[in-house]
Every structure is written in C-alpha cells, then in structure tokens.
C-alpha cells in the first residue's frame, strides 16, 4: 500500500510532457522561436486539416515547422514565409484566408447577416399594428393592481 502511494506521489513529480514541441526543434533564440510559433499557428497542417502546423503531430507538419524555423533564423519576415508556403500549397495552407473574390462571400458574411437580420427586424416592427387601447375592464384591473 505504502509502495503504491509512494509511486503515485512520484507521478506528481513528473514534469508534464509537451505533446508535440520537441525542445530540440525550438530555435535557441527565444524571440525568434516566439516568432516561428506565431507564424506556424497561422499555417494549416495539410494532413490533419483543422490543426495548425504548431499543433499537429503529423510528420509533414514537423517538417514544415522545421522549415519555418530555418526561414526565421535566416531573417525572413512572416509575409515572406507565408508566401513560400502558399507557393507550394496554395491559399488553403493559410488558416486565415486572404481577402479576394473567391473569399469575398466568406468575409462579407457577417455584414450580410447583420443587414438581413436588421432588415427583417425593421420590417417586422414597422408592419405590426399598434396595440388596441385598453378596455374598461382592463383599465379597472390596472387601477386595482397599481393600488395594491
């Protein structure tokens, strides 16, 4: 019993294992590493498509992370690195799609929803007739309620 408890206690001491980020992958300069993470978080893993390459455990994502770090270490900025990726995998690789005619409906959808909703609300408000005046019975009931 004591032994099991000791073992369980020992488990608490174990440092949490970082799921994917192998410390050996990280750049030695923390500022550069932070930039690489920031850039990687905007790039889609082409294998498990709803994850960024920073979050994904796929082999291809690891290779792409490595490439991002090489480019960051070479002093490239985010636009240059994103462009490098887009040249190979297309706009799909960007988790934040660019604004162009293909994505215009996507980017305009909040405005469209607001206009449609606002238009409907206004239309319905205008159409509903004003409430009829209170009848004598209702007037008396209201007076009673106000007194109590």
């Amino acid at each position, binding site marked *: 019993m004591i032994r099991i408890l000791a073992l369980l206690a020992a488990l608490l001491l174990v440092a949490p294992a970082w799921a994917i980020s192998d410390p050996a992958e990280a750049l030695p300069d923390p500022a550069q590493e932070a930039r690489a993470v920031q850039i990687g978080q905007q790039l889609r893993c082409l*294998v498990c498509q709803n994850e960024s390459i920073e979050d994904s455990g796929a082999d291809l994502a690891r290779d792409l992370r490595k490439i991002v770090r090489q480019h960051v270490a070479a002093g490239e900025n985010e636009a240059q690195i994103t462009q490098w990726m887009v040249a*190979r995998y*297309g706009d799909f690789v960007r988790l934040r799609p660019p604004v162009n005619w293909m994505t215009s*409906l996507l980017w305009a959808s909040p405005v469209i929803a607001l*206009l449609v909703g606002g238009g*409907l609300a206004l239309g319905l408000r205008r159409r509903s007739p004003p409430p009829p005046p209170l009848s004598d019975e209702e007037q008396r009931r209201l007076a009673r309620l106000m007194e109590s």
Partner: protein
Amino acid sequence: MNRRLLLGAPLGIALLGGGAFYAMLKGLAKGTFDPRGVPSQLIDKPLPAFTLPGFSHADVVAEKKPVVINFFASWCVPCVEEAATLMTLRQRGVSVWGIAYKDKDPQTDLYLSRHGNPYARLAHDNEGRVAIDWGVTGVPETYLIDAQGIVRWRFVGPLPDAAVAELVKMASV
C-alpha cells in the same frame, strides 16, 4: 422600388448560396469536388528544380517526352493498391518514374522486389524536402510532366484503373 430591392437582395443571396451548395453536393457525389483536397500549385507551371539521388530535374527535361512521376513509399499501404495500375501504364509505353518519399533505401528495394517495379527510373527523397517543393501532402501522389518540363496533371491517392486510358492519351502527345 427601394422596398423591392430590400426584399430581393436577401432572396438573391439565399438563392446564390443554395445554388453553390447544390453544385458542391453534386461535385461530392460525382467525385469532382473534394473539400479536403489541396489543389496543386504546379499545374501548367514548370517543374521546380531538384536534384535527388537517382535522377534530377535535368533528367526529366532531357527525356524530351512526357513522364509520369509517382511519389510512393514502402510504408504506404495504398501504394500497394496502385502498383498494378502503374505496371499497366508502363506496359502501355508510358515512362513511369518513381520517387521514394521518406523511406530507407533497403526498404524501398524490398518493397519493389515484393510488389514489382514499374519504374523506369527511381529516385530517393528520404528527407521529403523535394516533395514539399512540389506541394506533396502524402503518398501516393502522381504527376504528369510534359515534354517541355511543364506539370500538366496531378492525382492524389492510389491511381484508379480508369486513369490509365487518360494518362496514356496525355503521355503520348
């Protein structure tokens, strides 16, 4: 007039969206639309320069006729599935070249001796870096490069038998 426009605009947008959605569903059913597909950026563009143990960009261009280049790996199960299709392509006179992706040379050799070798030439991309330059997202993936070294066609996944006739036609131009 203004009122009609206000009423018509949402209706028009809804119709447009409905139409687009219908087209997407139709495409899904026919297999012409894949929402998870990563369209190749190389189509109608020159093949990017590369040098691998086995063959290089210069070798592909020097061939002076269309070449089918197939990315495969010994660890890739669907690749086994398309091995027979590639063999048929080769028998029909198409130059089929292979690039082993993220593999180890002895294992590639073992795979080819076991499942047959359809490749006229074989290169090894053991790091997977050339594959990234091509925009490969996995294996198998197949490209058709024309006699001028321009990429004309790409297919993701195991080649279906139905692709043979089309490829023979494209590769014999």
